[in-house]
């Protein structure tokens, strides 16, 4: 590829552009190639892996992060992780797995590293102009034209920072969990961790064993699911119960957790304010253990900062040297007009896509991996990218069927994919029930395969 100015677009014909070479981007490249498409993938970093690459700027990983979904439920459906790996591999192993995937399927030759997508613009006939800037040289961008664009830029890298009264004048240090890498910075310090997601719980457990004092502030009660139940990975136990009616399965799980994990209020935590799976699951068997050791002191939500101290909503105070805000992330798409992703006044800046995948404004624009699930993400994104490839095939070969299909996708999206009654919190905007979502993508793929409406 030679250099092209920002105004004259170099036409790449039928090729598809993929933005990002994290897990989702790699899946898109592999599955599009398998369905016969030419693919150019652009990655602003110098390597693959996205968030799992702890060396990447803005990687949300930290030294002790291990998978929370077990190996068989996390691996790609058509490329298993080695079965001599542990049930919950370390993040460095997940990166190694992605590297092997890229090599095994020969994906690297389709990836342009150090290339940031600056802008995508729809042009005539459903095609897209894509402006690419070299991440290092800072020279003017190249403009290329593609038949379709798959956005796979991830949504766990732009930190969300809450703001509390008095926070600006706080005399300790405040960091978001995105900048937390390992526990060396906890040594000889008093640490407050805010947020009860998996990052908050993991980091509180790190502070429990390495900081002077650790307070953990959560603004509601949660179900703390351990990694193992009855000696088996908890998600495999859960998957094995899929044959039960949903209501019964939930009651059984809640009963088991109450018996095995116990009553959180005994530990000074609030009782869950929701049913099991009505919040993104915490998978962590150590928080209660450390509370039992006195190594984590649970606290409610922060009310305000006051000089050296933090005041909690129950009126108690703490004087941390360091506050880690593990308050999550927001999706961000600087390179694209929000309307293309269905962002409007009612969506709080979150995209609203058909089937959480297809742009509502363009038939040739997709976002892969823009979801959170109660199970592993990789398989869901695998099926998303298979659906994209099949859809592009049908669209090219049979416009009539394509129109019909678009109708089905809209219907599929109507019920939403989250479990009913999810806690109303911004992070649950992207939450799906893995089971429901897989079933829906399954119907979409079936329709694309058969050409007729599937039941």
């Amino acid at each position, binding site marked *: 590829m030679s250099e092209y100015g920002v105004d004259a677009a170099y036409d790449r014909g039928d090729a598809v552009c993929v933005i990002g070479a994290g897990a989702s981007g790699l899946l898109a490249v592999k599955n599009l190639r*398998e369905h016969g498409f030419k693919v150019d993938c652009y990655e602003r970093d110098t390597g693959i892996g996205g968030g799992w690459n702890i060396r990447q700027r803005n990687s949300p990983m930290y030294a002790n992060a291990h998978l929370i979904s077990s190996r*068989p*439920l996390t691996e790609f*459906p*058509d*490329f*298993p992780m*080695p*079965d*001599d790996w542990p049930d919950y591999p370390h993040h460095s192993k997940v990166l190694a797995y992605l590297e092997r995937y890229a*090599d*095994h*399927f*020969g994906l690297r030759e389709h990836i342009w590293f150090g290339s940031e997508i600056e802008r995508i613009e729809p042009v005539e006939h459903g095609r897209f102009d894509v402006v690419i800037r070299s991440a290092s040289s800072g020279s003017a961008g190249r403009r290329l034209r593609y038949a379709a664009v798959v956005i796979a830029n991830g949504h766990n890298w732009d930190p969300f920072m809450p703001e509390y009264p008095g926070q600006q004048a706080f005399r300790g240090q405040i960091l978001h969990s995105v900048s937390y890498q390992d526990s060396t910075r906890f040594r000889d310090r008093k640490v407050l961790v805010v947020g009860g997601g998996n990052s908050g719980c993991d980091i509180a457990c790190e502070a429990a064993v390495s900081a002077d004092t650790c307070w953990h502030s959560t603004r509601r009660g949660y179900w703390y699911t351990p990694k193992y139940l009855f000696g*088996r990975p908890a998600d*495999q136990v859960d*998957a*094995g119960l*899929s*044959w039960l009616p949903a209501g019964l399965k939930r009651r059984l799980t809640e009963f088991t957790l109450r018996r095995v994990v116990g009553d959180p209020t005994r530990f000074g935590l609030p009782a869950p304010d929701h049913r099991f799976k009505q919040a993104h699951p915490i998978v962590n068997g150590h928080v209660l253990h450390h509370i039992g050791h006195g190594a984590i002191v649970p606290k409610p939500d922060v009310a305000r900062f006051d000089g050296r101290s933090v005041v909690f909503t129950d009126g108690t105070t703490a004087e941390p040297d360091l506050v880690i805000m593990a308050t999550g992330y927001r999706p961000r798409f600087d390179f694209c007009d929000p309307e293309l992703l269905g962002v409007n006044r009612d969506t709080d800046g979150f995209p609203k896509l058909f089937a959480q995948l297809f742009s509502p404004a363009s038939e040739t624009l997709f976002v892969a991996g823009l979801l959170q699930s109660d199970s592993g993400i990789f*398989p869901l994104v695998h*099926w998303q990218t*298979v659906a994209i490839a099949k859809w592009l095939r049908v669209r090219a070969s049979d416009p009539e069927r394509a129109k019909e299909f678009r109708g089905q996708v809209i219907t599929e999206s109507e019920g939403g994919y989250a479990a009913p009654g999810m806690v109303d919190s911004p992070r649950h905007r992207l939450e799906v029930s893995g089971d429901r979502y*897989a079933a829906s*993508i*399954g119907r979409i*793929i079936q329709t694309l395969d058969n050409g007729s409406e599937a039941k």
Partner: protein
Amino acid sequence: MSLELWRRRVRKAPPTRVARQVVHQAAEIDVTGPPVLCVTGDRLGAAAFAENWLPHIAGRGRDAYAVSVRGQGDTPKGDGGLAGRVHDLVQTAAALPTRPVVVGHGQGALWVAHAMTRYPVVAAVLLAPRGLKRAPAPPTGAPRVLVAGSPTDRRSPAKRLDAVAALYGGAPLLFSGIGHDFMTDAGWQPPLDALLAWFDEG
């Protein structure tokens, strides 16, 4: 691969790991194509390929591998039955540096047919297949599939070859002058050369 197949699989407990015997012979000249992975239903397992096939394949410029699935050769017995053996085969294929072409001999053809439904092999030969009555599910990734055998092999008779080939939308390739034992019979080389030639066409 169908999504439904995957959903059903992950709801069951995965087969327990066993240490697998994998025999490897590196390509002896510049590599001419994807590695070849062999499996047979014979109790010998990988050893059945060690004497003739692997050196010959390596000599033709391809990395040559053979695996013993659970209960064969030096691989201990394990749980899972058919699913366990297919698991061993898929694990072996996915552990190779790049996607292989696969040869399944006898009962091994059945395991290959199942493995193909959830791992995209580049191409597959079902050689003197046994136990394959119905096509398990369509292969994923649209690999080329060839059914081959011998008209005089009573353990994989010509009628069966026709039926299996029809499952994959083709006709069988027939070799005369050989029985079921494609790996150690005196006439092993011409059929193997023909299979390698078929791989080269892809």
